[in-house]
């Protein structure tokens, strides 16, 4: 990371790489159509209204001939993806939705040595209260932007507004270089992002966090995790710090069961993974 006048310029794998040519107004009926998709709330990862839906996978047949299923109900979006990207390199296409106030806990999807995909996020409907976090950075992705998200780094996402936030998430073959994911490689930009500046945690903040040891129990431990999963959006800390806080809370509680639970949560969300 480097500093500039406005904040922190982040130069990790996550970056804005291009734009999808879509007219938000014309796309509105398709955004509406996603509301009836069979969404998976991803219990344990998603909090509130965070949910996702697999729209298309390569095993379903070529994307450009998808005449049935959910992809067929998004013709303009599919056409824009087809015009912009080499669809033959796409593994999966998903919709990630947060229908007003919700978030996903900080996690990693794979380890750097074994990337499962090159993941692109393209916001279809969003607002300034929709934020993404990666390690110690917090940023906003605007409508139509295509972002490569390095899912091997600890990351999270949230919608702190009452309005809906909908992203289409495109997973590509990780062997294909990013610029070659574009039908016209010259359309691939490479722009580092600027993290939103937040104050550092104070001693009061840490006292409040560790004080949770007083009320922590097996019944409320997941809810403690949920609450801690939002702190990095307001404070300049790595989003993975919540797992260290959970571990410390568990140890201070003196409950062996909570120490085990904290370890289980950390492994579930940050790895190491079995795949």
């Amino acid at each position, binding site marked *: 990371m480097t500093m500039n006048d406005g904040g922190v310029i982040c130069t990790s794998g996550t970056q804005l790489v291009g734009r999808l040519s879509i007219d938000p107004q014309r796309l509105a009926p398709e955004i509406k159509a996603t509301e009836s998709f069979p969404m998976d709330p991803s219990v344990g990862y998603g909090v509130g209204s965070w949910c996702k839906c697999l729209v298309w996978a390569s095993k379903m047949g070529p994307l450009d001939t998808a005449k049935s299923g959910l992809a067929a109900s998004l013709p303009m979006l599919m056409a824009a993806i087809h015009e912009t990207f080499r669809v033959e390199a796409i593994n999966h296409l998903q919709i990630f939705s947060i229908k007003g106030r919700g978030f996903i806990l900080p996690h990693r999807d794979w380890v750097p040595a074994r990337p499962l995909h090159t993941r692109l996020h393209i916001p279809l409907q969003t607002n300034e209260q929709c934020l993404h976090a990666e390690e110690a950075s917090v940023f906003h992705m605007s409508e139509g932007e295509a972002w490569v998200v390095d899912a091997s780094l600890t990351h999270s996402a949230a919608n702190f507004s009452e309005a809906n936030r909908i992203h289409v998430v495109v997973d590509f073959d990780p062997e294909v270089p990013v610029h070659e994911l574009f039908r016209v490689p010259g359309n691939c930009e490479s722009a580092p992002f600027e993290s939103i500046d937040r104050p550092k945690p104070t001693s009061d*903040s840490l006292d409040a966090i560790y004080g949770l040891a007083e009320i922590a129990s097996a019944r409320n431990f997941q809810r403690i995790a949920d609450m801690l999963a939002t702190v990095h959006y307001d404070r300049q800390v790595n989003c993975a710090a919540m797992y260290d806080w959970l571990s410390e809370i568990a140890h201070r509680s003196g409950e062996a069961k909570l120490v085990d639970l904290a370890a289980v949560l950390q492994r579930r969300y940050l790895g190491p993974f079995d795949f």
Partner: protein
Amino acid sequence: MNARCMGVISLSSDLLAREIPIMESLRLSSCDDAVGPWIHRSLWAGDHPKAEPIKDEVREQFPYLDQVTSDNFRTEQILSVRIFCASRGGYIRPHRDWTGSERAFTRLHIPLQTNGEALNSEDDSVYHMGVGEVWYLDGSRPHCGGCFHESPRIHLILDFAPDIPLTELFRDSACISAAPQPTTVNRDPLTSRQLEAIHGLAGIVTEKNLSPTLNLLSLVHFDRQVTSASAYDWLITIAGQSPDPALLSRAKQLKSAYLGPGWS
């Protein structure tokens, strides 16, 4: 506590065993007031006195639930029949079902599948309902329910017209056997250190985490001898220490939304 077990109805474990896996596999509806996996599904609906089984492929998979409902209860007084399913820490925030002096409905809970971590509360009492027990819940009091076990807790929920005496909800008195001793959960009192830790959350509370903070505070009463309504008072105290005046206003709104205006 006004909630009480009215008795036990006979349930066939074989017939339930056919339908419970279907309930567990259903994509049920979430609820804005729920936290985690707490989901529900309507089986009977309509305007009283014409509530009737919903004619869809989901309800038709539950002939035994229909039979339990019609064999035991005066279906002509039913407003709705639903299943409430909770697991893995899923619960509904402490709330009151109505705020005026007039009852909106009479609600009965009948657990179909449960476990020791399936708990309900009313005011400062926490209790567990056993399979087949028929429980009357007083929706005018702050109450809450959830399941803190991996295995789902599934309740059949019957709402009746509010003006029918409880004893007249059953088809006949032979439907129900004597109520067992209720299983209440004793908890330790909240200590001053714990209260201090709760109020200390002012050190991290913001507009972004006010709701998750309430979700945590709403569970404290399952471990400590306090009323579920305390969660809202704590939230107001915490928010009141924030430099953001909007936070206090939001905390007060949450209390009013769940417990009704003027509840203290």
